[in-house]
């Protein structure tokens, strides 16, 4: 299929970062440019905080987990500000950090500590989101998405809510584009079935 003709490596942000390190070298990374870069990352975080939180909430389906995820994302991004490539999409870079933290640390830790299981949480809902018809519809769409398996939910959110291209979604999730396509197709089939069944009514 045309969309997957390139290898996945080209889409990840980790690869260009490695190239940058090799080129500049560790000593040069400590120069004055690092301070500017931290400021840049800090600013990027600042303007992206609500969207990061929303992604954290979509993944975890819990407000306090979303808080956790954003806080850890900030910490990790500041720690690794030298890895951010100026000129690239900082919001996507931050989404990728948050996603990785979710998969590798937060979710695993919470499950291990018995502080809740990931599979059986409540649906995505916003307090008081049932006041008007528009909000009712919004709530239905969120519930439909919230009922999807986590991997599909993340892909749907990034592609259809955040408007990322398939390749950008693949980079954030650190998976091949083909995997993104599979997840979106499976999600679409499921959502379409539910719409046809009237499950969303």
């Amino acid at each position: 299929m045309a969309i997957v003709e390139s290898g996945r490596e080209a889409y990840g942000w980790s690869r260009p970062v490695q190239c940058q390190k090799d080129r500049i070298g560790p000593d040069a990374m400590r120069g004055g440019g690092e301070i500017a870069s931290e400021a840049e990352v800090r600013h990027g975080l600042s303007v992206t905080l609500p969207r990061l939180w929303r992604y954290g909430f979509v993944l975890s389906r819990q407000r306090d987990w979303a808080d956790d995820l954003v806080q850890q994302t900030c910490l990790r991004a500041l720690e690794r500000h030298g890895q951010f490539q100026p000129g690239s999409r900082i919001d996507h870079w931050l989404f990728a950090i948050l996603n990785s933290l979710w998969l590798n640390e937060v979710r695993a830790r919470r499950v291990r500590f018995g502080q809740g299981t990931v599979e059986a949480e409540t649906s995505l809902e916003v307090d008081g989101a049932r006041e008007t018809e528009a909000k009712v519809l919004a709530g239905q769409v969120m519930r439909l998405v919230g009922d999807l398996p986590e991997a599909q939910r993340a892909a749907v959110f990034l592609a259809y809510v955040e408007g990322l291209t398939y390749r950008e979604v693949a980079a954030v999730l650190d998976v091949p584009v083909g995997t993104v396509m599979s997840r979106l197709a499976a999600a679409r089939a499921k959502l379409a079935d539910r719409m046809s069944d009237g499950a969303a009514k």
Partner: protein
Amino acid sequence: MTGENDDPPMPSDEELTAFIDGELEEERRARLLDLIERDPAVAARVEHLSRASLPYGEAFQPLLDTAPAADLQRMLDGMTAPPVAANAVVPQTRRRLFGAIAASVAAGVLGDRLLVRLFGTGDGDELADDDGGPDREHHWHGVVAQYMGLYTRETLSGATPGHDAQSAQLAALNRPLNLSLTPEAVEVPGAEFRRAQILSYDDMPLAQITYLDPRSGPLALCILRRPGTVRGVEQEVRGGLSIAYWNGSDHAALLIGRLPPHDLTAKAEAVRGRLAI
């Protein structure tokens, strides 16, 4: 998708989804359009999958509006990038102290039961008041803050000791400080126990229990024997580190870490309720 024939049976949902999402390259898209024209089954499948083209952006807007933006911004503002923090917060005049402590850490003094001597700053103004005044009373906060400024996540990257090992480490603190610490009593909400050891402050034993908070990094609970008036938890910030401190009838205690003061205070309150000092 290997089918490059003129008349493939039925495109996969992946391909149809990419078509609906405008992600197919032009040539493939044109061929699929042609197929939809000719094959009602393909058209029906596209129509079905298109039912999932919902107003996602609008639907998730309210969620964006409920994000605790102000809290998150405050959290970010209070956050210092760890590699920069340790040096950035130490005034020039305190290099000597800093170096001494750094050397201790480098020499492996952080191992259990070894004695780390926390030096005074040598700052005359702070040390002069030796009669129990408020500056003197809180002087140790500053010394602990400088010491904790050296800690990074890596310092505490080890595993959490088992319950018995924790008990043994705490027992080593209990006798010199006249305490009765247990792993349960010193538990800090949301943080993982790392080690308990005795430091020395002003020739007095100082209990230091370190934790790794996955959210904020290193935390420490420090206890000093200091009879006085019982006081509830108060908070301050020193060198970019938050400190929540309180007094029992026989000891002074503090919890220190790089997180918002009110978050730290909440943890301190939880510990205070369990800790007999």
